[in-house]
């Protein structure tokens, strides 16, 4: 059901060229936020307009496209973006991580290891990691260019002084190749180690804020921490209720009015794959 009145992947070719130039610049300077002329997209800001534009710019007719929203392939955001590209680009889609060549993601990195040749596109709400510490954009740009990142540690200091440990659990700031401090988009800090040394290309698009940044394959990405309070990826201390996985990131799901809850993999593809292979958790039907 391709809509022929649109150019391939919705955006016109000039716009895609402009976005590709921003992507290439971003790849050349890992972690640097490249401004770009973000377009109005037929969906509201906050629904992934940045990610959609980046996906449109890198997509070819031969690609196999996957969209995940908080790890799931079947939520509103994922379903509507997937059908958007089915309509406007006619590309094949999949829910299997290993089969996809372009994966657009909101707030998760898939559990299955990514490979060379894959592109992971993140939807980013606020690209500036220093935004809530220093409201002036002119000042944060200067701080990035002069590598003045002491303020980022003030935030972590505040966490420890208030909670006794670093309580930031998502959008955990990272340093890229020892240079730029970057907001990895609101992924749980459990996913932070997967950013580093990843064989796939990782692209970050912020539509409303008009910024693109990128991590080329095998980039060194380090989560910020203190010597006496080292970074710790965290997850709910349970196995998955459906597939029994001990090592995947879990969602807590309320199942009745009596406080009943189960913990299930947030990555639905990972969970279904394990169930098909015969793994069963304690809550599986």
């Amino acid at each position, binding site marked *: 059901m391709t809509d022929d009145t649109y150019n391939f992947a919705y955006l016109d070719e000039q716009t895609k060229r402009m976005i590709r130039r921003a992507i290439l610049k971003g790849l050349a300077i890992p972690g640097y936020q490249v401004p770009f002329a973000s377009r109005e997209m037929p969906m509201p800001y906050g629904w992934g307009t940045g990610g959609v534009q980046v996906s449109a710019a890198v997509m070819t007719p031969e690609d196999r496209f996957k969209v995940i929203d908080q790890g799931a392939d079947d939520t509103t955001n994922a379903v509507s973006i997937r059908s958007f590209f089915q309509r406007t680009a006619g590309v094949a889609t999949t829910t299997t991580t290993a089969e996809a060549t372009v994966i657009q993601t909101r707030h998760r990195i898939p559990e299955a290891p990514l490979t060379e040749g894959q592109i992971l596109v993140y939807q980013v709400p606020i690209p500036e990691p220093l935004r809530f510490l220093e409201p002036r954009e002119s000042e944060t740009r200067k701080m990035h260019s*002069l590598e*003045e990142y*002491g*303020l980022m*540690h*003030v935030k972590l*200091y*505040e966490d*420890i*002084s*208030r909670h006794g440990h670093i309580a930031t659990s998502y959008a955990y700031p990272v340093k890229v190749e020892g240079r730029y401090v970057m907001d990895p988009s609101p992924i749980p800090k459990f996913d932070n180690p997967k950013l580093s040394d990843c064989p796939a290309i990782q692209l970050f698009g912020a539509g409303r804020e008009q910024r693109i940044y990128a991590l080329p394959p095998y980039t060194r990405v380090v989560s910020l921490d*203190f*010597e*006496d*309070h080292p970074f710790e990826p965290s997850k709910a201390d349970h196995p998955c209720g459906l597939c029994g996985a001990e090592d995947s990131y879990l969602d807590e799901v309320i199942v009745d009015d009596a406080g009943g809850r189960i913990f299930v993999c947030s990555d639905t593809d990972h969970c279904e794959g394990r169930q098909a292979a015969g793994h069963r958790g304690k809550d599986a039907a």
Partner: protein
Amino acid sequence: MTPLLSVQGVTRHYGAQIGCADVSFDLWPGEVMGIVGESGSGKSTLLACMAGHLAPDSGAVVFDTRADGPKDTVTMSEPERRMLSRTDWAFVHQHARDGLRMGVSAGGNVGERLMAVGARHYGDIRGKAVDWLERVEIAATRIDDRPTTFSGGMQQRLQIARNLVTGPRLVFMDEPTGGLDVSVQARLLDLLRGLVRDMGLSAIIVTHDLAVVRLLADRLMVMKDGRVVEAGLTDQVLDDPQHAYTQLLVSSVLQV
């Protein structure tokens, strides 16, 4: 001996208006210099030019850096200048709110400069913050409170702690006692005097309060209409003013 700071012919115009014109002086290590004058006399412009917040139209501000000896801070690169203002310089604003991060706890405020120069050990940073809060007479139990919950005098003392934690050699102060009531002023001045003497700090204090310079400053410069009209030892200038404006200024102080 080389002067710690050598100001040479600093001039700054605002359009056709003179901010400050042709100001020159040397500040020696361990010396406290007072700059007095009425509102609009160019004191704050001069201070901003010296501290690198404003670029002077002409003139040089030569600082004796630890690594490379005397260097002109006007022509040095911005990263170098910002590094100086995080390490060897301190700037105490008149309004504590301008110099503090109001959304960050007292400990975080004191620790910021340490983290900015690379401290990455939470326990050490916190230990230093506690130490400095005590030195400025703020109870260590307030370390996790935000400055918004502090009184004006406490905020000003916190600002001083935050600035002195990296052991600067030169402190710029813009009316440090402005807006505080007299008993709080007296305690703050007492504290400042102790810190300046103990740490061997050099300081430049801009104020219109002659009592402040009498108490803190070794030397005094009197400014009017952007120019220095009289300079000398504090007691000498205040007790035997030569320039008509200085005489007016000294005689204007209310005697209680």
